């Protein structure tokens, strides 16, 4: 007798596929939000497993801060071409020009916060009623309390005190016109699961996840890229370091770590012994104890 045992990766994958198919079936205009980061790559693979050999029953959308790592944009375009799906790009820059998003005074400020109005505007433009995000509950305390189907009101806001109970795998996707739902199919995955899955599925990831030499400077206990978007202050010395990134975000706020990891299995071994959490390198989260909750209430991913 076989034991019919599923590994934890198979179990997580199956749940995520179930969520994607459920959204495809119950919503009229879903969209998959894509950043080029590892979590959105998992989402694409899950979508392939859910719907192939047919095409995805939804487009893919990238909310572009304009502060991207060039390596990630190149990777994005190549990947979308390869899988043959439709990509929509909406830029924070355009939203700033239209006056939908207002940039904070002073340089060096991340545009992460400005992604929210840009995203809400795009949701309105295309009348999306469900948006897949790659958020995971192990990333942050506020995310740990978020439902897989996360209900947003007409203003795109999340109300953590008024969430629908979510039982078994029975998702309540009922909304009124103008409202929408953010869906997080990989809520229960951890950073380690993600890398183990990338290895198992042999997925290509942007090169900035691997160790490379980069001009960086030290600020707020982390290494930041010296880039046209953010220049070091006089007191901050630019040095070349052997680093890699753990998350792919806005170049202005994504901190690098010193690392020798050259391949996926190096990364798995590295994070297994890590003592700093993944978003510990994101300056936008360190602002306050409830920074993520506050951003989510405004309509952030």
């Amino acid at each position, binding site marked *: 007798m076989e034991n019919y045992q*599923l590994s934890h990766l198979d179990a997580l994958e199956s749940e995520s596929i179930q969520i994607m198919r459920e959204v495809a079936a119950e919503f009229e205009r879903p969209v998959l939000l894509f950043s080029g980061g590892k979590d959105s790559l998992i989402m694409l693979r899950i979508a392939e497993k859910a719907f192939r050999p047919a095409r995805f029953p939804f487009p893919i959308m990238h909310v572009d801060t304009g502060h991207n790592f060039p390596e990630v944009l190149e990777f994005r375009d190549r990947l979308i071409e390869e899988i043959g799906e439709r990509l929509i790009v909406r830029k924070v820059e355009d939203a700033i020009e239209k006056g939908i998003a207002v940039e904070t005074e002073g340089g060096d400020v991340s545009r992460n916060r400005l992604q929210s109005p840009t995203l809400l505007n795009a949701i309105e433009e295309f009348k999306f009623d469900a948006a897949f995000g790659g958020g995971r509950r192990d990333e942050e305390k506020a995310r740990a309390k978020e439902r897989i189907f996360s209900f947003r009101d007409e203003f795109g806001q999340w109300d953590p005190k008024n969430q629908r109970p979510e039982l078994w795998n029975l998702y309540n996707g009922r909304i009124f016109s103008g409202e929408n739902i953010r869906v997080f199919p990989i809520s229960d995955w951890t950073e380690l699961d993600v890398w183990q899955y990338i290895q198992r599925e042999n997925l290509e990831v942007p090169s900035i996840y691997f160790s490379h030499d980069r001009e960086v400077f030290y600020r707020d206990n982390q290494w930041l890229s010296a880039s046209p978007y953010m220049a070091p202050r006089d007191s901050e010395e630019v040095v070349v370091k052997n680093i890699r990134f753990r998350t792919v975000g806005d170049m202005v706020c994504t901190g690098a770590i010193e690392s020798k990891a050259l391949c996926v299995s190096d990364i798995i071994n590295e994070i297994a012994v890590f003592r700093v959490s993944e978003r*510990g390198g994101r300056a936008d989260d360190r602002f306050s104890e409830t920074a993520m909750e506050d951003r989510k209430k405004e309509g952030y991913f």
Partner: protein
Amino acid sequence: MTDLTDENSPTELLRFSTCGSVDDGKSTLIGRLLYDSKSLFEDQLAALESAKQLSGNTEINLANLTDGLRAEREQGITIDVAYRYFATPNRKFIVADTPGHVQYTRNMVTGASTANLAVVLVDARKGVIEQTRRHSYIASLLGIPHLVLCVNKMDLVDYDQDVFTRIRNDFEEFSTRLGIQDITYIPVSALGGDNVVDLSENMPWYNGPPLLSYLENVHIANDRNLTHGRLPVQWVIRPRSDEYHDFRAYSGQIASGVFKVGEEVVILPSGKSSRIKDILNFEDKLPVAYAPMSIAVRLEDEVDVSRGDMIVAKDNVPHVSRDIDAMVCWMHDRPMLTGKHYAIKHTVSNDKTVVKELLYRVDINTLESDLSATSLGLNEVGRVKLKTQNPLIFDAYTINRSTGSFILIDGATHATVGAGMICEPALEPPMPKYEGYVI
């Protein structure tokens, strides 16, 4: 040390819920499991340290790690279910940390719905109290097969074996009415870490495993239903491309049982039968698939199958009926009323239902039935008769947590208002005859 990059050493996933009030030290226990299993990171620890200094406490409050919402931190209580993750070399754990106050019973039910195991905390100084009974009842109602009663704060009763034994006896007497298969008792001190990850030197009289090692080794493989083949059809894959001109595959997550290529199956509610031609998982063709895999199947015959239908094993079919008898936990301020219509979601089908009768309400603290009850209020549980617009394809919850569960939705507000667990029908409803169909 296990090689984490080795795909051939898969780890098993175990979901458990913890219930208890903040006073029981539940969040401290989870914090301790994360901390001692090295799943707590330095920056998280640093954030706790700075919160400690701000609040003027002398001990790090590990509860701050799980109580993430602003309102929770302000009020010092856990409001919502928080999910936590940690891993040891052979298991990955997903913890649903649920609040214990009676007004958050619905959150407890939510956390328990997918759990393999429940950890119930008892304060050694207080023993088995109303809340302990409520939590344990909910664990049994939601069909959780394993329960661990952690007698916490043993440090405050001088690690006294008699205290532990008395609480254990109390609980054993109560729990005979619950029908939980497997109950384990562990004396712990979450604050000091006694019997959490390592065995305590303070309690040499305890000869069981510490909590973590119990969680790592409890046998859960047999808890899945691998007997009744059930595939609710979630999505029909039709590429409509030249390459896949006539391709049709029926996809979904196997709710229970095992399906094999070549096996004869029945499609409900039509009652037509066919054989499984292929089992697909993306680019792989599988000879066999089992719960809870998400797969797609192709059938030998061109039968009409759409979302909401169920592909089932021929030799063992579920009930098909419009009359549903269920235990319902109510989750909304506006009470459940007899005669009222609700939307119902069951497996992947959406339907309408009307509440025909409330047979009784259960006092979730005493387990007594109140036959005179006429409505179910927030956080109340009762036995209910429903009639659905279309026949439901179901099994009893006690044998199948997937095809035996449903949620009720208020059609006017779209709020999720109730959680239901279907009871075995008293009389077998007349089953459709399948033999007559020749395709």
